[in-house]
């Protein structure tokens, strides 16, 4: 499955461009904003990397979710889901492939933006050190959970719901303490106070485990419903 998507990405510069453009433009915009605020606020001046790092981590969540959902949508757009569904590929294996593609797509999108943040603003998200890996993993897992729910919805109601793939993150924004509390609090604790908050990371990890379990069960259940309703061969609008 990963090979199939690698073939696709290798020959499609618009897809690569879309993945890289938004994280980069977000980073640049928030970089300018940070520079402006740093002249007005001693808090921002002390920790100029907070906003840019937050934007980059936010994009890990957003791209992680999109990476999962869009890889699934590619199969529907190309009318290949029927072929996959009659192959020995199990739904759980499909999920694993989509998660792998989500990691690849996220790295393609976020790594160039993180590099440019060093060049443009001398802000390196990599200075977060090892906890960055924990933040990255937590955000990605949360993205997968939302992606699975989006795909489950598409399986239930068809391609009419595809725009939810782009909307989903913003749908939960009002109730997610703006930008995913545990991870972003943890990031601020490192950048501002120089403290690694293991309690926040653990809380985030446990919550994500719960979300992922619920989302995976919903995704698999939707496959079963699609089998009952005969949607796997002819999924459309």
């Amino acid at each position: 499955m990963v090979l199939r998507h690698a073939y696709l990405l290798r020959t499609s510069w618009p897809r690569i461009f879309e993945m890289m453009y938004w994280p980069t433009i977000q980073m640049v915009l928030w970089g300018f904003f940070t520079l402006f605020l740093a002249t007005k606020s001693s808090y921002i001046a002390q920790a100029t990397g907070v906003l840019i790092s937050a934007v980059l981590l936010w994009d890990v969540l957003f791209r992680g979710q999109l990476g999962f959902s869009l890889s699934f949508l590619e199969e529907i757009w190309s009318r290949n889901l029927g072929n996959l569904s009659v192959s020995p590929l199990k739904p759980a294996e499909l999920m694993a492939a989509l998660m792998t593609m989500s990691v690849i797509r996220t790295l393609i999108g976020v790594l160039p933006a993180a590099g440019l943040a060093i060049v443009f603003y001398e802000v390196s998200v990599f200075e977060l050190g090892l906890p960055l890996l924990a933040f990255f993993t937590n955000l990605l897992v949360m993205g997968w959970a939302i992606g699975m729910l989006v795909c489950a919805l598409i399986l239930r109601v068809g391609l009419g719901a595809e725009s939810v793939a782009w909307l989903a993150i913003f749908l939960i924004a009002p109730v997610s303490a703006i930008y995913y509390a545990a991870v972003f609090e943890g990031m601020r604790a490192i950048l501002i106070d120089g403290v690694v908050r293991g309690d926040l990371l653990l809380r985030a990890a446990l919550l994500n485990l719960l979300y992922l379990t619920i989302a995976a069960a919903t995704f698999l259940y939707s496959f079963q419903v699609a089998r009952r309703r005969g949607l796997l061969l002819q999924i459309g609008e």
Partner: protein
Amino acid sequence: MQAPVIEVAGLTKTFNGVAAVAGIDFTVSAGETVALLGANGAGKTTTLSMLLGLLLPSAGSVRVLGEDMIRHRYRVLGRLNFSSPYVDLPRRLTVWQNLMFFARLYGVPSARRRVLELAEQLDIADLLKQRSGNLSAGQKTRVSLAKALINAPELLLLDEPTASLDPDTGDWVRGYLEGYQRRSGAAILLASHNMAEVERLCDQVLMMSRGRIVDRGSPAALLERYGQDSLEGVFLDIARERQGPDAPERAAE
């Protein structure tokens, strides 16, 4: 005695109370080619979907290669394959990339060799570097057939295998399928509207109408039973609900 490749008993599928398939029974043995023949909406594609485990039956049982397709389809999916106009191969991928992808998905040993072998047999070697989305209908059919044969299936399920092909390409595909079956001993179940195709390829024909198998037999037996000189005449008799002089199942209904 060898177990049938397909065993269907009392197979039923209802959508919102309407029966798309209503309690059908049949078997297909190894090396046999069987056609599901019927008008649009007769239940052919629904039956194929249930055989593949893509669609859960409302009642009845389906066993394929000895396994219950409702509960244990993943035990046998690697031993069968499928081609249908309802599915496509990813259009941006080249023919080579698509075939390599499916070869790996089916765990085909020596995937490269198998792809090259099929490309040679199906006369698509010069298409391997082309994007699948740029192929003509005839080329697409041959590539889809290569995908369906990638794992050398013991059971091949084909939905309208020569639909939208010109007579020459259609004839070539039918000839290839005959040869494949002779060489491999595979069972083939096809859903078709093409009477000439069914007459040429099939050992047994299951005539479907409104979700039921209303008659069955070899092409020759059906022609004799309905007093027709082509399966098209038999098809029209059944579609228009005229009974042949000796149509026992229909007479019994």
